[in-house]
């Protein structure tokens, strides 16, 4: 399988705290890759490195064979034009209407006529079930609607890569299933390379071709979905069977722990 993105020995810090401890994996072209892992294990951080918002302490990230960690901002911007990103908090521009938010990347990077842009915007909003909300401001939307608007913006330029950070968090099951269908369609029809961070087990088994599971800053598993299903690693089983973390403290120890000695 051809790799669209290759990460080698990626080490990242926030201040002195190490978040990712030298992880390596590949993301195949034209497939959907799901990134899994417990809350706070560094999935959003990893995504921010892939799109160049953060610079790693060490390691390389190859996108289409070019190392983005040594690129200048201008060169990276050329790569970014081929990327669409949904942030965990949607990150719509609050000062603009939905239509302007979705139109923003189109206006910035193409010289299309205004009527064409309007049509494209309406199509994208339609795709995520938000037609009729063109003139709403983000503050007038619910959390799930913001997420969907963020997806519409990510798709505005029909990018080669899509990065979704928890797209279905906060959506009702029906809308979430619709979103899964959309992701599958984007992969099948437009051959997009899609990277999704998600916790929804149902959605993982529907959309994923490949899975990368992070734990404690390291890659626990990377490979096709079937491999994950068959794995008997205890942490993976816990995740897939929704078991809680095992008690590591006896009640007496726990009391001593929270009392601070």
């Amino acid at each position: 399988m051809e790799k669209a993105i290759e990460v080698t020995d990626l080490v990242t810090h926030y201040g002195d705290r190490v978040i990712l401890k030298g992880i390596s994996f590949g993301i195949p072209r034209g497939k959907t890759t799901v990134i899994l892992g417990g809350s706070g294990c560094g999935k959003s951080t990893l995504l921010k490195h892939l799109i160049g918002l953060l610079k790693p302490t060490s390691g390389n990230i190859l996108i289409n064979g070019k190392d983005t960690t040594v690129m200048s901002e201008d060169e990276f911007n050329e790569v970014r034009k081929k990327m669409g990103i949904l942030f965990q908090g949607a990150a719509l521009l609050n000062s603009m209407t939905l239509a302007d938010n979705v139109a923003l990347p189109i206006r910035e990077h193409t010289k299309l006529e205004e009527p064409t842009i309007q049509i494209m915007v309406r199509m994208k909003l339609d795709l995520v079930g938000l037609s009729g909300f063109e003139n709403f401001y983000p503050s007038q939307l619910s959390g799930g609607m913001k997420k969907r608007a963020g997806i519409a913006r990510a798709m505005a330029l029909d990018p080669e890569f899509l990065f979704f950070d928890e797209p279905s968090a906060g959506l009702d099951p029906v809308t979430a299933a619709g979103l899964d269908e959309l992701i599958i369609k984007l992969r099948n029809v437009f051959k997009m390379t899609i990277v999704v961070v998600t916790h929804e087990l149902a959605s993982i088994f529907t959309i994923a071709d490949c899975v990368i599971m992070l734990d404690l800053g390291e890659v626990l598993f990377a490979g096709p979905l079937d491999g994950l299903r068959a794995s008997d690693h205890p942490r993976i089983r816990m995740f897939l069977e929704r078991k809680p973390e095992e008690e590591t403290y006896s009640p007496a120890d726990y009391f001593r722990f929270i009392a601070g000695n």
Partner: protein
Amino acid sequence: MPVTAESLFGFIGRRTVSFLKNLHDAALLINNTFYWTFLSPFKGKPIRVRASISEMVKTGYNSVPIVAVISFFVGIILALQAAYQLRKVGALIYVANLVGVSITRELGPILTAIIVAGRSGSAFAAEIGSMKAAEEVDALVSMGINPVRFLVAPKLIALMIMLPALTIFSDFIGILGGLLLSKAALDINPYNYFQQTVNSLLIKDVMTGLVKAWAFGVVITVVGAYQGFKVEGGAEEVGRRTTASVVASIFLVIVFDLFFTTLFYYFT
């Protein structure tokens, strides 16, 4: 003792490092701001005209009432204070000179700058800061849009135009305040007062005021943007940075005023 000395040096070292880092960040921001405002339009990356106009309305047009009222009052105050001294030597008509010169050379630009720093400098810091906190700035970068070009350049253009414009307006209103006071309380004929003002003012008095106003516009924009981009955390930090931006920009406006006044004193 060695422990204290070590922590003292450590403290000085950390302070120096963080000061140098801040200085570097500020220099980088100034550099980027000027690049995206003045150079990039010639390299096929046009400035955002519509956003600039909307900033002009917010920073300039909307401050007209408050600038008018304050300038008017300060004009009256100046005339009264000048009359207090000049009455003793029987030279009341020179109230016009004093009011005209101090308003155009000094008070017009600085009052306007302080009002705009309070209104718009804080608004810049709050706007950019809350965008930073909500990952909107990250979203811009990820779409390949430079946040300085998108957010700061329109603000800089707006203030570079509107601060001198507001200053001229403030000059007029301040002189008008002096004129009305002189008519009402000092019995000076308005026409004489007007003539006296025109004769006493040199073009250079007005021009130096406008040069100052332009520089103050740059200072206020850069400080507001700098504090905004420094926000890392949430709403609480936005508030702190907003306050800091007002204090810092008023301070820097006074520092630059001192610099320009000294410069003009010796070189014009």
